[in-house]
Structures are given as structure tokens and as C-alpha cells.
């Protein structure tokens, strides 16, 4: 009896301990996680940093001194490049290990290893589109060059030196929550991170949608509604900029080809609104007499922060700026003499080729009048718990056939039985560009650095202390016939292949223009007078138009007025169409709330300030109206994956073509006109807003309606910030939308003593239990910048430092 009692009790005890030590679904192992000895409590860091710390690390060649300023940004002083990148790797891992590793796991299609089979479709897509293949190609390029090889190897050694110090108790919080362990870092992971950037910024494709539209409505409608240059544009390289090169011949366009309909498709493509602003102004327009530069890349608003600030000092280099956690060097920043920044070029560098396999074995495909061999790659996807799923991917010379048979695909833009030709699969060495930029002294060095950049193509803005400013939409661009790749292409026809490259020196560029400034905001790289085809559509020109208007008007520019422009909330879209739209409404048919809203809009000065009501009304109305115009012909109910004509074309329709047939809803017997649609959608907008926010009033405020949030990378409730009171919006210079926005704002004033200012919506630490996880968010929200501490030596300005770390060799 007593034994029975004892054994029963033991069984219950063992079951309890087992249950508390095991992860069930999304629930972490409760006992292990809650234990203050080993669990999450360990990550509840003190706000105060140790004033002095000394570490002996194997792999260091000489002593390294690291000073932390009050935002806990590290300033690294090393005696050589190896130690410099070792220290960068070590420090970044110390602050961001989970983020770095999780992103590379995601890129490599290995999330199922962590969270189980629910991630299998995601993992398959990552692998089938050749993310690892592309990273291997880049890695080969980076390892072939001694300087970048050193960067990668030293950085990797630094990350691993940190991982070697960890035990389950000190693992970053997310490992405890998801119950897994970090693995050793490799140079391939650095390359994978660059591919993540490439996919986010150069991973969108409209080819499938466009071919579907072409098939359904014919070339005339495509020409009319999807033109190859906007009506209203203000390109990066101004129209009329003289060419300083003799262009190559462009391959002849082959006869028309229309691939078959394909409508087998899913969501999950990178958001269209990822864009950025940058500009530089000449010394004769500034208060200091020296050029100034500004940059704000717009990315998803996430925690841990996308960027990691650091100053890197060693013989031959002293650079400050932001890095990507997991990759060595500085991506956007400045040194003593030069400053640079980037925005995305919406180049068409992802094309789809319809593939004809010889038979069901898929061992050969037809190209250039012969059967060519297919390379089969078997992807082994590990699933948490031990299972392995094999998946075969077929590679042609174009690239991988992302989906080789009809199935529910992960990304709606992916046509089935098409091979993907993507620039990010080519051998490259972007790191070399960064290495050289970090050490650049003048424009010549800048130009030298740019030629190594392949993808994602970026608008590199430049300013230096020698009074030069410049802007290069830069990357490796295929030499295409006009509109090549606007639609899906014929994978068997050799003339549809990419047939060469635009020479690096002939990429669009502008240096020291007469207007005294250069700028980019993802719009067309150049005007119709540029000899090469880069894409038929770029981001809407709104931000570019506004920035150029302001810069042309501004004189005596100071860092603070540059900051002001970064926070500009002017709504070009509203200014363009709102007067015309309001004129369509019949006021007598509006009820009281609708009349109030009408009055509100009539008084609006077109600024998307956070406390205004009009931006809410206008943005909702504009969406509803666009939908009412286009959805019947181009929406999802057609059963085909298509898209609406762009905003520029819709402007033209509304402003210039009151009789167009597109206003008519083809599903109703009545013949709709613009005034009818405007009235209907206005009434519907006000009614739905009243339903959502109550009577017209404070709840309708733009910031409240927009509800910007900064979320944890794994979307953990409580680990981010909701309903942040900020203005701006999509296609506004202050591009803060619901989930995307300025991920780093920087202003640099060149001069005898370079001065930098910057902020990001987060903090240096990736640890949700750290004070430095989100301490910069409020300053960012207010649109302010912190002065960046730029030092010449470790003994310079010690007062500003709160902590010092010395790395000693073993």
C-alpha cells in the first residue's frame, strides 16, 4: 500500500517535471522558462553597465578597446582589420545573436527545424527560389578576394567567440521561448543576410500579373493603362543630364510572345511600400559652406532593430554608421571625408521563363533548338522532432524552376513551370563595395567602390568635404531590349535570355548638377533620354517630387532643416486629386456627418499630421475609389492574378479622362461615371469610418486610424509597441505607414569636423529584457535625431562614455 502510494506519487512527480521541461505547441517549457536560475528572468538586465570590463578572447591578435556611449553604441578601436571585424562580430552577436541567426535560418529555409512542420511551405519556397544557391554564389565571390575574405572570416570568428561563451542559462530569451540552441556561425550566413536584403528589395515581380492582363485585355489596353513611363515624374538623374559615355547597342526585341495563362498562385511577397529617401546638397546651399547628406531607408518596423550602429576605427579606416546584424562593415554612414547612403532601385532584375520539359522525368528542357540537361537538387528540410522532408528542385541555365507542377504556391507572384532568372543568384562581392566605401577619401574612391555592387541595386548618394555631391542608381543591370521582362518570357527562345550587361560606368549618374542638390526616392532612375531600359515602372514619384520641390526652394540649409524635410508630411496625392474629387460630389445628397467630413477635407492643407482628421478620410476614400474604378476588371474576383494600373495612371484617368469606360462597373446594368463612383465611395467611406471610430472627432485622427506599430520579429505580443502617435504615411516623405517606415534616419554635415545625426526606432540591444531594446523609439517618434559621437581616438572625449570593454589576446 505504502509502496503504491510512493510510486504513484513518483509517477506524478516525473510527469510534472517532464511536462514543465517540454515545449507543447507554442507554449515554452514552463518550468525551464520560468525558473529564475535558468529561464527568462536571467535576461532581465540591469540598466547600469559595468564601467570597465576586460575579456581575454582566443583569436584576437592585438588589444582592442571598445567604448560605449550613452545609447550603448560601441566605438571600436583596433590595431588591424582582422581584430576590427572580429570585434564587430563579437559585439553584434552579444547584442543581436538571436535576430542574426533567426534571419539566416529563415533565408535558408530552416524555420521548420525551430517551430515544426507549420513552416514547411515557407521553407520550401525559400529553398526553391534558390536563396542558399544565391548565397553560395556570393560567398564564392567574397572569398575569392583577400580583403573581403578577411572581413568574413574575422567577423565569423568574433561571432563564434561569443557563442562559445554561452550556456543554456545565458542564451538570448527567444532561444528559451522557442526552446532551441544557437549553432556556430559561418561566412555563408553573412552571405545569406545579404540575400535577405536582396529579396526584400529586389524580390518583387509583376511579370505574371502583366502577362495575365496582356492575355485578357490585349496589347492596346496594356499600352494605355500600363505605360512604360509615367505622366508625372521627376527622375533621379534629371532629364537633360549629358551622357559622359557612348552607349552600347541594345539587343533587338524578338517577336511577340505570350506565355500561357497561369493563375496558380499565393501571397507572401515583399511589401511594395519598402522604399527610401536620400539626398545631398552642395556647399553653396548650406549654412556651413560644405555639403550635407541625408538618408532614411524605409523598411518593416521591427524589434530588434533592423540596423546596428557602430564606429569602426583601425589603421586606414575610421567610419561610423549602421550595419546589418550578421554582416561585417558599415552600409550607410560617413567617415572624416565622405558620407554615403542608399535607397532602393526598382530595377527589373527578376524574370520568369516558361520552361518546356521533354517529359515527366524533367531531366531535359528545350532551349535554343536543343534539349539541355536539367540539374536536380534535392533539398532536405529538417522538421523539429526529427522528421526530414525531401524536395527536388530543378535548375535550368536560367535558374531554379520555383514550382514545377501545379500546386498551391507560397508566393502569388510565382508562375508555375517557370524558371526564375534573378540577379541575386549571380556571383558577386557587395562586401568589397562596403570595404572601399568605408575607407573612401573622395569621389574617385566612391566610383571605384560602386563597380563591385551587384544586388540589390541601390541609389548611392554621395557627398564629401571636397565639395562634390553625386548620385548613382547602381547595381548590375542586364542589357535588355525595351520592356524585356515586363511579362513572363519564353524559356526556350535564346533571344529572350539576358544577353549582356550595362557597363558599370554607364549606370545612370549625376554629379554636381547646377541645381545644387541630388536626391532619390525610388522613382525612375533616369528620364526617357537615358539610353538603356531598367524597368517600365518604379515607385510612385510623390516623395521625389516633394523632396525636389523643397530642396529647390530651401537655402541656407542646416542639419536641422534636413531633419525637417525627413519629417515632411505633405501629401502630393491629395494635392493632385482631392480638389477634382471634391468637385464631383453633390453636397445636397450628403447627411450631416458626411457634410462635416466634406468641410474638413475642403479646409485641409494636405499635410498628414498625426492629429489631423482629413488624412484618414482622404486615404480611405482614395483606396475605395481606386477599387471602385479598377476592381471589376483587374481585381481578384476575375479569378486571375492581376493588378490595378498604378497611381500615376489613375491620376491621369481622374484628371484628364472623365469619359473613360473604366468607371463603369461591368457587373451592374447601370453605366457608372466618375461623379457616381466618387459619391458612392465617399458616402461609404464616411459611414465605415463612423462605424469604426464613432462620431467625427478625435478618434478619427490620422495617427489613431493608421495605428503604426513596431513589432517583435517573431510577432510576440507585448514585445513591441502599438498605436504609435506619428504622422506621415505611404508615399509621404515621412514614410511611416502601419508597419513600415524610416528604419534609420541620418543627416551628415561634412566639413573640417564632420558631424553626424541619426536615430532608429528601437535600440542597440536585441534583448527584450534590456533598457536599450527600445530606448531610442521615443526620440524617433518625435522626429528628432541624436548627435552621433564620432571619435578620432579612444582618449578623445571620454566624458561621453558610460562603459569600456578591453579585448585582450590570449
Amino acid at each position: 500500500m505504502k509502496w503504491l502510494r510512493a510510486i504513484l506519487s513518483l509517477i506524478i512527480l516525473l510527469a510534472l517535471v517532464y511536462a514543465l521541461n517540454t515545449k507543447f505547441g507554442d507554449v515554452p517549457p514552463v518550468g525551464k522558462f520560468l525558473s529564475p536560475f535558468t529561464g527568462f528572468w536571467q535576461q532581465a538586465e540591469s540598466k547600469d553597465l559595468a564601467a570597465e570590463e576586460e575579456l581575454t578572447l582566443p583569436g584576437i591578435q592585438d588589444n582592442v578597446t571598445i567604448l560605449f556611449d550613452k545609447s550603448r553604441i560601441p566605438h571600436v578601436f583596433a590595431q588591424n582589420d582582422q581584430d576590427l571585424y572580429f570585434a564587430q562580430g563579437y559585439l553584434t552577436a552579444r547584442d543581436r545573436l538571436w535576430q542574426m541567426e533567426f534571419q539566416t535560418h529563415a533565408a535558408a529555409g530552416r524555420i521548420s527545424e525551430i517551430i515544426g512542420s507549420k513552416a514547411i511551405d515557407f521553407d520550401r519556397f525559400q529553398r526553391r527560389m534558390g536563396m542558399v544557391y544565391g548565397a553560395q554564389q556570393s560567398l564564392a565571390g567574397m572569398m575569392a578576394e583577400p580583403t573581403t575574405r578577411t572581413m568574413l572570416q574575422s567577423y565569423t570568428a568574433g561571432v563564434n567567440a561569443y557563442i562559445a561563451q554561452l550556456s543554456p542559462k545565458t542564451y538570448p530569451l527567444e532561444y528559451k521561448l522557442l526552446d532551441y540552441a544557437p549553432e556556430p556561425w559561418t561566412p555563408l550566413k553573412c552571405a545569406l543576410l545579404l540575400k535577405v536584403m536582396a529579396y526584400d528589395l529586389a524580390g518583387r515581380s509583376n511579370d505574371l500579373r502583366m502577362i495575365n492582363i496582356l492575355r485578357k485585355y490585349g496589347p492596346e489596353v496594356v499600352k494605355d493603362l500600363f505605360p512604360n513611363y509615367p505622366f508625372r515624374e521627376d527622375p533621379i538623374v534629371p532629364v537633360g543630364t549629358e551622357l559622359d559615355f557612348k552607349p552600347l547597342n541594345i539587343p533587338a526585341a524578338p517577336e511577340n510572345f505570350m506565355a500561357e495563362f497561369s493563375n496558380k498562385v499565393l501571397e507572401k511577397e515583399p511589401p511594395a511600400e519598402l522604399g527610401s529617401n536620400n539626398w545631398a546638397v552642395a556647399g553653396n546651399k548650406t549654412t556651413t559652406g560644405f555639403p550635407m547628406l541625408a538618408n532614411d531607408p524605409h523598411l518593416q518596423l521591427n524589434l530588434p532593430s533592423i540596423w546596428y550602429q557602430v564606429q569602426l576605427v583601425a589603421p586606414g579606416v575610421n567610419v561610423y554608421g549602421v550595419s546589418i546584424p550578421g554582416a561585417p562593415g558599415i552600409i550607410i554612414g560617413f567617415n572624416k571625408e565622405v558620407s554615403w547612403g542608399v535607397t532602393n532601385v526598382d530595377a527589373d532584375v527578376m524574370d520568369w521563363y516558361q520552361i518546356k520539359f521533354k517529359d515527366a522525368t524533367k531531366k531535359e528542357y528545350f532551349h535554343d533548338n536543343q534539349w539541355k540537361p536539367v540539374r536536380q537538387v534535392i533539398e532536405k528540410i529538417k522538421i523539429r522532432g526529427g522528421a526530414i522532408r525531401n524536395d527536388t528542385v530543378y535548375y535550368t541555365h536560367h535558374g531554379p524552376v520555383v514550382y514545377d507542377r501545379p500546386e498551391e504556391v507560397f508566393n502569388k507572384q510565382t508562375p508555375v513551370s517557370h524558371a526564375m532568372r534573378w540577379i541575386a543568384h549571380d556571383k558577386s562581392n557587395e562586401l568589397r563595395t562596403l570595404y572601399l566605401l568605408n575607407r573612401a577619401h573622395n569621389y574617385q574612391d566612391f566610383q571605384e567602390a560602386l563597380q563591385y555592387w551587384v544586388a540589390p541595386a541601390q541609389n548611392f548618394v554621395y557627398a564629401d568635404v571636397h565639395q562634390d555631391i553625386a548620385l548613382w542608381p547602381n547595381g548590375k543591370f542586364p542589357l535588355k531590349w525595351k520592356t524585356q521582362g515586363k511579362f513572363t518570357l519564353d524559356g526556350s527562345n535564346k533571344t529572350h535570355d539576358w544577353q549582356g550587361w550595362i557597363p558599370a560606368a554607364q549606370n545612370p549618374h549625376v554629379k554636381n548638377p547646377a541645381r545644387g542638390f541630388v536626391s532619390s526616392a525610388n522613382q525612375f532612375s533616369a528620364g526617357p533620354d537615358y539610353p538603356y531600359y531598367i524597368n517600365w515602372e518604379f515607385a510612385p514619384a510623390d516623395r521625389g517630387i516633394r523632396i525636389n520641390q523643397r530642396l529647390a526652394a530651401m537655402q541656407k540649409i542646416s542639419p536641422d532643416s534636413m531633419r525637417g524635410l525627413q519629417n515632411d508630411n505633405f501629401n502630393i496625392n491629395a494635392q493632385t486629386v482631392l480638389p477634382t474629387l471634391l468637385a464631383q460630389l453633390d453636397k445636397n445628397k450628403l447627411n450631416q456627418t458626411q457634410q462635416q467630413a466634406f468641410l474638413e477635407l475642403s479646409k485641409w492643407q494636405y499635410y498628414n499630421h498625426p492629429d489631423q482628421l482629413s488624412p484618414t478620410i482622404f486615404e480611405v476614400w482614395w483606396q475605395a475609389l481606386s477599387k471602385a474604378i479598377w476592381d471589376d476588371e483587374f481585381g481578384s474576383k476575375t479569378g486571375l492574378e492581376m493588378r490595378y494600373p498604378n497611381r500615376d495612371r489613375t491620376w491621369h484617368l481622374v484628371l484628364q479622362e472623365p469619359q473613360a469606360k473604366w468607371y463603369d462597373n461591368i457587373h451592374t446594368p447601370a453605366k457608372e461615371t466618375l461623379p457616381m463612383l466618387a459619391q458612392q465611395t465617399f458616402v461609404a467611406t464616411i459611414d465605415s469610418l463612423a462605424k469604426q471610430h464613432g462620431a467625427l472627432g478625435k478618434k478619427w485622427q490620422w495617427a489613431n486610424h493608421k495605428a503604426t506599430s513596431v513589432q517583435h520579429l517573431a510577432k510576440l505580443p507585448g514585445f513591441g509597441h502599438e498605436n504609435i502617435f506619428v504622422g506621415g504615411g505611404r508615399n509621404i516623405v515621412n514614410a511611416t505607414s502601419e508597419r513600415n517606415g524610416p528604419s534609420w534616419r541620418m543627416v551628415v554635415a561634412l566639413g573640417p569636423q564632420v558631424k553626424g545625426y541619426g536615430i532608429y526606432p528601437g535600440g542597440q540591444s536585441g534583448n527584450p529584457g534590456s533598457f536599450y531594446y527600445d530606448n531610442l523609439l521615443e526620440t524617433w517618434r518625435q522626429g528628432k535625431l541624436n548627435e552621433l559621437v564620432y571619435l578620432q581616438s579612444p582618449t578623445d572625449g571620454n566624458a561621453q562614455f558610460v562603459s569600456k570593454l578591453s579585448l585582450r589576446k590570449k
Partner: protein
Amino acid sequence: MRLFLLLLVLSFALQWVLPWWILAIVSFVLAFWLAKKGSGAFWAGFGAIFLGWLGLSLFFHLRNDGILTSRVATLFTLPQPWLLLLVTAVVGGLVGGLAALTGYFFRRAWVQK
């Protein structure tokens, strides 16, 4: 009381260096050795571990101004952050109490034979 104090000190020390479930083994062994009554064993085990877990998590909580406590509390849908401290201590306490009780039961079974 002796069991409680010994358990408090020893489990605290061992949990510092070993996996968290070492507390079950310590509670079991000490209760096997020292416990006189079932209820006494349970409450000594519960109390010692409860107190150890509460004390240490409270230390981290205060050092951190409660930043992480409120995040994790939201994640676990607890209405108040301080409840997380209580939940933590109770989970530890239950394991400690049950382990001590089991140790006592084994002792009784053993001795009777």
C-alpha cells in the same frame, strides 16, 4: 524547519549551476532523509522552492525596473505583471512540494519493510 532551511540553501546553490529540475532531486533526497510528516514534507518543499524562486525573480524584476516582467506577462496574457512573479514561485513550489512529499512517501515505504 531544519528541512525547510536546508532545502532553501542547498537547492538554491545547486540550481545555480545545474538544470532547474535538480530541485526535485534535492527535495526528494532531503525529505527522504529528514521529513517526519507528509504535510510537513510538502510544505517545507513548497515553501523553500517558492521562496527561492520568488526571491531571485524579484531580484531580477527590481534590477530591471520590471521591463521584462511586463513583456512576458503580456505574452502569457496575465492581467498584472506581478502575477508573473507569483506564477513563477508557485510552479517552482509545486515541484518542490511534490518531490519532497514523494521522498517522504518512499521513506515510509522503505522503513516499514
